[in-house]
């Protein structure tokens, strides 16, 4: 009985010692070493099977990457088709939102009215807000309008750095010409909303 249990202890200690070097990958791997050790302990019994499984996983991974590339290519072509079909350049208007300036504030929502009709209302997640603060630009609306001037109203809701709620609305005129119209709504802190024509 004692011998059986000792064998178990010896086995555990052997694999604990042999595995760490391979299992450690980063800080997180310090934590997941256990799982890997357990798996390796089992698979070590049959190295041929283990190699086969690894080859199979690698082969599948490559095929998954290939299909990802195929689907991305389809998505790009569909983007072009969609734009041509749904938003021809003659009538296309796209409205973007970006954040500028050093003032820290939490953006909760942005609502956009074009020609008196609400065309977008977006509630921001933490990740989206972070992406805006890093310099990303969000396309909040894309649609079609006739050439000429169009009233644009932007309403912004959020919290200041001090935690106070704020709500701000600004009205602009957007002149649509022959080509696609790209309008960037720039939120500079909690107080300033400006519009940039592209």
């Amino acid at each position, binding site marked *: 009985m004692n011998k059986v249990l000792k064998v178990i202890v010896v086995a555990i200690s052997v694999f604990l010692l042999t595995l760490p070097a391979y299992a450690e990958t980063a*800080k997180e791997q310090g934590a997941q070493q256990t799982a890997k050790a357990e798996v390796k302990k089992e698979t070590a019994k049959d190295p041929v099977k283990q190699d086969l*499984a690894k080859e199979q996983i690698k082969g599948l991974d*490559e095929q998954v990457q290939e299909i990802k590339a195929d689907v991305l290519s389809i998505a790009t072509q569909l983007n072009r088709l969609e734009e041509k079909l749904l938003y021809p350049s003659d009538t296309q208007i796209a409205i973007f939102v970006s954040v500028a300036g050093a003032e820290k504030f939490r953006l909760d929502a942005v609502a956009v009215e074009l020609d008196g009709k609400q065309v977008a209302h977006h509630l921001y997640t933490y990740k989206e807000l972070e992406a805006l603060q890093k310099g990303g630009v969000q396309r909040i609306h894309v649609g079609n309008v006739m050439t000429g001037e169009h009233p644009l109203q932007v309403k912004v809701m959020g919290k200041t750095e001090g935690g106070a709620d704020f709500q701000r609305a600004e009205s602009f005129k957007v002149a649509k010409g022959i080509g696609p119209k790209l309008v960037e709504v720039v939120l500079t802190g909690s107080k300033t909303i400006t519009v940039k024509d592209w």
Partner: protein
Amino acid sequence: MSRLILILVCLLSTTVALAASTAPALGLNDVYFGEALYHAYQGEWFESICRLDTELGQHRRLDEPALDSLYPHLGQAEFDVGDFELGYRMHLRAGRAISAVIEGKVEEPRKNAAIYRLARLYFQKDQPMDALQALERIRGKVPEPLRDDLEFLRAQVLMANGRFEDAARTLKELQGAKSLEGFSGYNLGIALLQGGKEQDGREYLDRTGQLVSANPSTQAIRDKSNLVLGYKLLDENAGAGAKLVLDRVRLTGPFSNRALLGSGWADANQGEFERALVPWSILARREVTDPAVQEALLALPFAYGKLQIYGKSALLYGQALESFGKEIDKLGASIASVQEGRFLEALTREELKQDSEWVVKLRNLPQAPETYYLMELMAAHDFQESLKNYLELTELGKRLVAWEGDLDAFEEMIRQRRGYYQPLLPEIDQAFKQLDSQMRLRQEQRIRIEKRLQAMLTAPRPDYLATAKERVAREEIARLEQLAPKNAGGDGTAERVARLRGVISWNIATEYDRRLTEAFDDLDSLIRETQRLKQRYASFVRTRQAATQSYEGYDETIRSQREQIAAAREKVTALLPRQGKILEAMAVDELTRRRERLEQFQVTARFAIADSYDRANKAQAQKRVGQ
């Protein structure tokens, strides 16, 4: 265990933040490039690659790309699209991600950061040679926050390639790195042990095992160092040393169960079975799915047996047997459940994807009993990589189905547009032709008038500016003049006619300047009107073209898209079950291994019960004899 998984999940999630931390250095010139970054910053790699690919594609088709707003960002965009592909775990050797990253025309630190991510991806995908080759391409400046992590990765990769001495050398230089506190020491210890420097290796493990830190990651690696060193000493029958080291492991950490088990064995190794009861009793009350706990269920009665408390020992063996039986049933049900596909269903639940701690939550799902035994497996890289592939394939499949629906909608839209425009256009075209010829005529007239007026600036022609009334009057006078000779009789008619002609000529001559000015004003007004007319004409032509373009020329594109989508769906449909089978096989292997282990324990427990009863009987018999 939950904590272990949490640490893993948190650290895995940092990969999103690490990748693609690229903001345009000189301000944004292309709003769509900004949109691609917006998606990339959120780890939405598919959307970011797709957006940037669309932009790059449009840019490359331009006649004068230098005038395009993407032009100033071109180098960065080409680099980023490769970098985003790495984020999307696409690193095929022949893939553009690698060439984009390695040959990218960006500044050294950014390029090196991307190569680091590439190497890490290779390493995570168990391709240490490729990882090493990628790391060897790093030249020059490395971003400061990444420097230690890069060297740490290099050491790990060297270890994975069996170059323990090189790894140890690298790790020695990282001993002062605060962010790697514990990890560098532990890995150095392992590298030295693996490289044959037994004593040095132990020393570093021991040193790491005594670190004082409030950082949970450092505490975890400290526990791990103690666990590894403790079991090593135990293996060498150095029970006292092993006990000392294993007792340093926290009672609440992810390694506490195995430490308690080892601590008990260290006592047992020294013949201190009574002391061994303490850690084993604590352990036996913990979550029974843990392998160390299951072993403790056997070790505890074993210790009681050694202490000659056979009754208690037999009772505990009985309890262990019962517990093993239940767990074996649970494992059997779990294996069946996995084979019926419930495991994959549980892994792909939408509500879990919304939660960053989904691996932990999975354990609490009532319909997923198998996950109780799979927490450690699910935290392993091999499993995680396969799972990510499975989830991404599922996602791709959904996208492809949705796109087929989109194409149906596009075709319907085109059909409706054709149905609306086709009957209208011939009539409109006819009317337009008439208007067009009228417009051309008027245009020619305007040009003639303009030329005549311009000529009058140098050669005045007052008669051109006579009013309609004056012209009529002059015609009447001419008629009267023709009649006048017949009536020549001195009644003064001829003089009167001549005077009238003179008055008209006078008016025309004296008002010439005013009339000319007015004529030019009228011409300006006419030009403005003509311009407006031209604009409307151009607008009509564009609208007319747009009407045709809204339904013509799409058939081939849509047909080709359909074919590509169908082909991709076929591939996804073939790959998804294969990837799923791998996950299921991993799970079933793990569950089977655990079941076999419990079955062995069951056999051991049955023999031990019988042995305990025998010994108890013998002891009682001896006692009676003694009395």
